[in-house]
């Protein structure tokens, strides 16, 4: 049985063919899940130290354990394939190169929770991956791996459908995604109640990221102890990372937690291959809501327990490298262009706050900064962070404050810059 998400996948192998996946040992995880039973599967996931791969890093075993203790029928299984963090394209590659690992992981969840139905929510910008999944699901159905009496086991009935998004970053937030699946605008819900209790159509629901389900397949097939041994003391197994920006070899790579430093990931010929177009400027890790690091953090290990970000640098697996031709203030302005457009508008602190923060950054970046703008930037950012209802607004402090702390002089310099436009 393979023990990596992508490493065993040959360039020529057509991973969209179920026969290819089966020849690699596919569906051994599901067979083992049936054999050992629900409690043992959840125990293996906890032992394997799997943490949510979408960005929040919540322990997957704990999430599954919580749903197992909740009464309610039916329970739904949902896969978050709304990969929208800028600079992140690892789920896209995983869905192209190992789609059945995701489907198998969701089927294991179906078995564990006795669920009738799983749904994969694929972002609207990924029509190819949507098509791949539909074809793979059909092949699994025809092979008796979805539908009625899966694996010939009487009463093991479970199917998976795909639902397409319509272009809204906020739908990556799990409760917003469930609203979107229900055919409503994708605005987040106020929590509690948590989705494990009141989820899709008000039923108990499990929501995990694409890569998390694939990790579950590996854990169950290879055992939790083995999976954990592949990673670090803070996180088991491997992580898919997307390195892009000013590097020689942008792309998706699979790395064990804790084994490499950011410096190695950016410069090693095996990974990013070094900075191009100038010297190293800074690196934005984990997605737009992740921290920005400068030269002094490059020797931190790529792990959940790094000293500089408290693991926030892992996030979605994005590593966006910028060379020294890019001004950090200009960069942050562009980050806020994104957040203010994607704010869903439901809560005032985020709807107005993201625009106020963008305005300050726009002034600073174009040489129109006002004397107290740096303080205003910090205060407004902290307010949006504290008062917003969901992760979108709550996380904008991470890139902004890490940049302010790491590159204070650049912001001071922006204050006395000549105006570039009126």
């Amino acid at each position, binding site marked *: 049985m393979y023990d990596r998400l992508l490493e065993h996948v040959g360039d020529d192998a057509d991973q969209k063919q179920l026969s290819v996946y089966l020849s690699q040992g596919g569906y051994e995880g599901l067979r083992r899940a049936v054999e050992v039973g629900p409690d043992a599967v959840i125990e293996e996931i906890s032992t394997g130290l799997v943490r949510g791969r979408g960005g929040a890093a919540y322990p997957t075993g704990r999430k599954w354990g919580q749903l197992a203790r909740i009464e309610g029928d039916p329970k739904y299984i949902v896969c978050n394939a709304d*990969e*929208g*963090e*800028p*600079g*992140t*394209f690892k789920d*896209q590659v995983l869905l192209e190169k190992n789609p059945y690992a995701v489907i198998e992981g969701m089927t294991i969840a179906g078995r564990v929770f006795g669920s009738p139905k799983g*749904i994969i929510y694929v972002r*609207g*910008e*990924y*029509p190819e991956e949507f098509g791949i999944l539909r074809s793979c699901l059909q092949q699994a159905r025809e092979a008796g791996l979805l539908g009625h009496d899966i694996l010939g086991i009487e009463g093991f009935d479970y199917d998976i*459908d795909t*639902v*397409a*998004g*319509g*272009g*809204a*970053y906020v739908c990556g937030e799990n409760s917003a995604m469930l609203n*979107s*699946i*229900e*055919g*409503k*605008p*994708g*605005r987040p819900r106020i929590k509690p109640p948590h989705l494990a209790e009141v989820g899709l159509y008000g039923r108990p629901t499990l929501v995990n990221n694409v890569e998390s389900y694939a990790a579950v397949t590996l854990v169950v097939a290879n055992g939790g102890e083995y999976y954990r041994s592949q990673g670090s003391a803070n996180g088991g197994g491997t992580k898919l990372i*997307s390195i*892009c*920006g*000013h590097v020689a070899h*942008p*792309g*998706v790579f699979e790395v064990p937690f804790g084994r490499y430093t950011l410096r190695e990931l950016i410069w090693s010929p095996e990974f990013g291959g070094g900075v191009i177009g100038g010297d190293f400027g800074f690196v*934005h890790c984990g997605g*737009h809501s992740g921290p920005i690091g400068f030269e002094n953090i490059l020797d931190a290990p790529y792990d959940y327990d790094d000293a500089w970000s408290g693991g926030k640098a892992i996030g979605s697996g994005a590593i*966006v490298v*910028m060379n020294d031709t*890019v001004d950090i203030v200009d*960069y942050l302005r*562009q*980050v806020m*262009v*994104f957040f203010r*457009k*994607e704010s*869903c508008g439901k809560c005032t602190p985020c709807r107005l706050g993201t625009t106020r923060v963008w305005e300050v950054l726009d002034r600073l970046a174009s040489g129109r900064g006002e004397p107290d703008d740096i303080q205003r930037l910090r205060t407004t950012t902290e307010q949006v962070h504290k008062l917003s209802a969901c992760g979108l607004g709550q996380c904008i402090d991470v890139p902004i404050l890490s940049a302010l702390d790491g590159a204070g002089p650049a912001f001071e310099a922006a204050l006395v810059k000549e105006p570039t436009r009126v």
Partner: protein
Amino acid sequence: MTDPTRDEVDEILARWDHSREHILSILQDIQHVSPEHYVSRSAAAQVAEDLGMTVTAMYEIVTFYHMLHATPHGRHSVEICESTPCYFQGGDALQSTAAERLGIAMDEVTEDGALCVETVPCFGRCATAPNVRIDGAVHHRVSPAVLRDLIDRLVAGDRADQEQVSQHV
């Protein structure tokens, strides 16, 4: 220029099992067959009735999701990624290139309804930045010169199409 017919909308609804879960696919398919790539009032009303929703609820959906349009959106679309990996690897210059070539601002439609140019968030092709999506097809590592050429060809192609249409009429 006609909107999708009732039969076309019915066929799309059947394709997605008249399921509200697939409302975004239904609306996107309707936009796809609409010559100006938007959800017309009549189509929105038809879908709303079929799915047991109010027209207001339908418009709440159409206006919430970026990929759906409630007004004519141009016969062709040029979407420039504005997320940081693209923007700082030449994407910034592509915005001004497109705007200058067409004489419109971002997110506007040309007067003749031929083209809409918009900035869009990351669509996950960051390894080949800067990316531009034209009528749904992604073009990688696009330079201003290449974008000018692509736009010129779109405009010329649209002009030829329109002449053909008017000859038939």
